[in-house]
């Protein structure tokens, strides 16, 4: 009967991305919160810690790297692991399941909305950082190259892990209580709020398993002078290792998402 082919998963995924961005932008409170929260944190930490970590490296400079990295985790992992159970409770997912839209299109749509919100969030954070908190932007193109792949890879990994983790909360209502502590603990362990090398060794070792520590360290390699690398745990930026570890988490997140994704809460 139908002469046309069912639209491709990619085409539907891109349409979903546009729709999700539109939906996000209409939730004004959450837009303001998502975009302004990192700037508020930067303002607080920037005023509390005014010391220099080494010559020319202010705490704000160190902290902005951590804030960008944890922005990756917040807009992707945290947001999705909380929102998807809500959509599941509402029956939004079940309705989608009944259409020819495949799960992959849903994932693509989520990656797009995460990427877009994250880029806006980071742009605002950097603008505020430069204007008000004396943050210096790198001038070396190689650093901007690292910055770019870190954001793309980091946001993809964060999205995939958020979808994977979304099967754990049993309901939309309880999701935040399950997800937020995980994120906050990771932030403490990964050297977002404190200088990583000041943390106890065991914390550093636990953090090294998870991607946030690597995203943070990667961002430090972008925003801090190369001389600072000597103060890292390994004495270098470990850029190659950072890439592979985040990639491994991306793949793990994808595999788990594809294998375990649930459209409906089993009752």
């Amino acid at each position, binding site marked *: 009967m139908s002469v046309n082919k069912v639209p491709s998963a990619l085409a539907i995924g891109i349409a979903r991305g546009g729709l999700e961005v539109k*939906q996000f932008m209409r939730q004004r409170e959450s837009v303001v919160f998502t975009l302004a929260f990192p700037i508020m944190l930067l303002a607080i930490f920037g005023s509390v810690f005014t010391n220099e970590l080494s010559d020319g490296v202010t705490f704000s400079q160190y902290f902005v790297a951590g804030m960008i990295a944890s922005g990756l985790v917040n807009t992707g992992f945290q947001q999705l692991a909380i929102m998807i159970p809500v959509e599941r409770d509402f029956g*939004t997912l079940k309705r989608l399941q009944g259409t020819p839209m495949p799960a992959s299109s849903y994932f693509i749509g989520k990656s797009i909305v995460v990427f877009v919100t994250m880029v806006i969030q980071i742009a605002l954070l950097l603008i505020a950082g430069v204007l008000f908190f004396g943050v210096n932007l790198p001038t070396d193109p190689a650093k901007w190259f690292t910055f770019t792949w870190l954001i793309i890879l980091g946001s993809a990994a964060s999205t995939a892990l958020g979808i994977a983790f979304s099967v754990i909360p049993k309901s939309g209502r309880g999701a935040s209580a399950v997800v937020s502590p995980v994120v906050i603990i990771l932030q403490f362990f990964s050297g977002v709020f404190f200088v990583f090398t000041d943390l106890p060794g065991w914390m550093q070792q636990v953090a090294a398993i998870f991607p946030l520590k690597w995203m943070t360290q990667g961002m430090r390699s972008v925003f801090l002078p190369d001389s600072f690398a000597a103060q890292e745990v390994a004495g270098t930026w470990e850029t190659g290792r950072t890439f592979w570890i985040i990639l491994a988490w991306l793949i793990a997140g994808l595999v788990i998402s594809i294998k375990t994704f649930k459209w409906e809460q089993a009752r």
Partner: protein
Amino acid sequence: MSSVINVRGLEKSYGANKAVAGIDLTIEPGEIFALLGPNGAGKTTTVEILEGFRDRDRGDVSVLGTDPGVKGEQARKWRNRIGIVLQSTNDAGDLSVYETVAHFAKYYSNPRGVDEVIDAVGLTDKSTALIRTLSGGQRRRLDVALGIIGSPELLFLDEPTTGFDPEARRAFWALIQDLRKSGATILLTTHYLDEAEALADRVAVINQGKIIEVATPALLGGRATSLATVSWKGPNGLQSERTDNPTALIRKLTETYKDEIPELTVKRASLEDIYLEMIGGADVSQ
């Protein structure tokens, strides 16, 4: 052409609760088929198995020649041909009616016109309104719009008109009849007997997971041949008589009364009477 839906020996339990206890069902192309039954009878469970949402424990099921448990690309092709209106959905409402319908249209190979569908469900006035500002009945109409946007060959409707005002319900019936004219097959569940009577070619009454009877609305429960009750006002007040031949009785009465027979009524069992009798033994405690 083969049947659109073919079910043999379908069973499904939730723990110890046997929600579907051996159902057979055949639905032909172009048919409007209604499932009637009390709360908890197993209607939604049956329909959701046919829609591919739930697994079954036992039985053979074919929907448009495909097992609803199908996965991957095959599932997409199959879903492209069916439309679903679930019993309850509660979407987050930050999109307008038009945006939502237009978006769902992108999922299908041959979608209907967005404005045409919005008009068909009577939401033209609300086209630019955000979903969260819609009333319950208007949301339900949006559900129907999303169910038909893909020009489905087979449409599932689980209590589609719950929350509709009487006028909207009539308009919905006309919409369903139009869909059938264009060749679609329709399976709906309902608690409204007038709806089943107005729409359905055949009705299945289901209770405690079993189909009690399948018939046209006119023949259900031996309705056409059931006794009629003739009543009129006699010398000693209201009188009535149950008979299988009311015409003969009235002919006899006309001889007695010559003129008008006072307060004459002839009543056959309504679909509702028949239905209540059929499910009368129902254990409604669950």
